[in-house]
């Protein structure tokens, strides 16, 4: 039954989208005219996707896809760092978040020299920040450091 996992996931996603599409508002006929209600096109797309998923299931049954090796610890760790980045950005500061994630990523991916990881994590965001701030005139979201910098 393993061959059903991916087509099944696609079908489940498509059904969820169809359900969400059915909750959309209906536009008055005089506005829609000869064209379609806003819900029709996404539903049509998802029906196509379900059809394709059925064919995919048949294909996988005939020739099962290669089984992937387990994810490396670094991959899970990197995804976890995305979550860390979110919380640090929302509750602390985007630049601090980038520096922390870069530092952790360097170490997690195998950099043994802490001073190198530290230098990369410090120099890169600072350089990019000043490039965007001074040259491209982009203001970054308010946070601990940016509040201090912008005043």
């Amino acid at each position: 039954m393993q061959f059903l996992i991916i087509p099944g996931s696609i079908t489940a996603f498509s059904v969820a989208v169809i359900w969400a599409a059915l909750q959309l508002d209906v536009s008055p006929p005089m506005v829609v005219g000869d064209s379609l209600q806003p819900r029709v096109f996404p539903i049509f797309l998802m029906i196509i996707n379900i059809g394709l998923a059925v064919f995919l299931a048949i294909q996988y049954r005939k020739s099962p896809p290669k089984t992937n090796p387990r994810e490396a610890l670094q991959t899970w760790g990197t995804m976890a760092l995305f979550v860390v980045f979110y919380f640090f950005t929302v509750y602390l500061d985007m630049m601090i978040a980038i520096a922390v994630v870069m530092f952790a990523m360097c170490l997690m991916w195998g950099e043994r020299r802490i001073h190198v990881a530290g230098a990369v994590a410090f120099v890169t965001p600072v350089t990019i920040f000043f490039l965007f701030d001074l040259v491209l005139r982009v203001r970054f979201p308010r946070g601990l450091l940016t509040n201090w910098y912008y005043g």
Partner: protein
Amino acid sequence: MIEALQAMGSVVLDPYLIFLILMTTILGVVIGVLPGLGATTGAALLLPFTLTMEPVHAIAVLATIYVSATFAGSITAILINTPGTSAAAATTFDGYPLAQRGEAGRALGIAVVSSTVGGVFSVIVLCIAAPMLARVAYEFRPPEYFALTLFGLSMLATISAGGTLRNLIGGVFGVWLATIGAEPTTGIERFMFGNYELYEGLAFVPVFIGLFAMSELLVQSRRINQVVDTIALKAVKLPSRDDYKRIWKTVLRSCGIGTFIGVLPAEGATVASMIGYAEARRWSKNKDEFGKGSIEGIAGAEAANNAATGGAMVPTMVLGIPGSGTTAVILVGLMVHGLRPGPYLFTEQVDKVYQIFGAMLLANLMFMAMGLYASKLFARISLVPLQILWPIVFALAVIGAYALSSSLLDVWIVLIFGVVGFVARRHGFAVAPIAVGLILGEMVETNFQNSLKMFEGDWWLIATQPLAALFLVFAFLGLFGPVILRSIVKKRN
């Protein structure tokens, strides 16, 4: 014609543009030699940096990244058996064996010259074909555009990475992503879940950065323990006269193949190089040499993949339909900078169009100089440790995404689509169809709705329009052609 040549020539009179092209060529070559960072990722990461530039300069920068990174993938393909870009995968078949025989310089010389000829040839074709196609495209109305976008989507079925079904599923998913936001006719909100920042739909650039750069970061996290063999490079030398005699037919053939495949919607340099390589082998008198270090193999693949760059720009600029993953990013760049792709670009802003073509031509010549004189240096860059390189890419990606519209939502979109792209790639789905679907999604829906209004709800009348019918036939062949062909071959056997 004279105006066009004048506009192209004006590029060499703009020192700032020449400086930009030079710097971007260097950057493009660096991006191309770094495994995992291809032209598409590079262009997506660089797009936010072009925001304050003039439109021509910005698009010239993106186009230069495209051509130089496409070439540079061959450097690592030859020297470390790792294609810097997917378009250089076919170059490893013969480039690396030739380098192992101690002829790395010769292999790189062949790759540089073939790539330059391919690139220059395709820009010339672009200059001639684009205005001609634009003249035809003036006549396009919603039914023709609808059928054309369907044709573009159907071509996703034949993109090399991923299988037909998986590419189509990815394409449909991309089209669905384009429905997020307010529906264009009625203004009814779709799939926004209360988030009003999505009212105008998903921004293309964060999605692209997520799909290409962030997902690649996660893919690379699985490869950090791989060890690569590097080959010492003495000097890059131009091919000898005998080499030229052997490869000129192959190069010319691949130029034609690459440009033609590039013009086809959604097909790109990777498909072109594979077909260029296969055709080089088919027509060669020395078939046995292929896979063991054939210079025709290198020339066939390299001329084709760079010829595809100019070809892919034709539908991008004339019809607003991306010819490849990278041109999808360039298309977004055109929109961001107020250059609306389509036939009217060739009447309203023709000088800018030709300046962009001129910049592409110049970029091709510049990467030739760099390939010949600095390949050794660039090859060393490929040895930058992944644990240093990819955290920097992370920083560039999130800051670049934020800078586009100063919205944190764009940053979250990058992270989400990074994971989506990674999961998709892990299960054999390519991410390019999702990107192309996202771009074509709005076009396909809007033109279908407008066609319905035109024909008072009778959708089948679309097929009665000659050009639309032709595109629908192409779309049908794009989808079912390979299946029909296979069954015919099966019956014959």
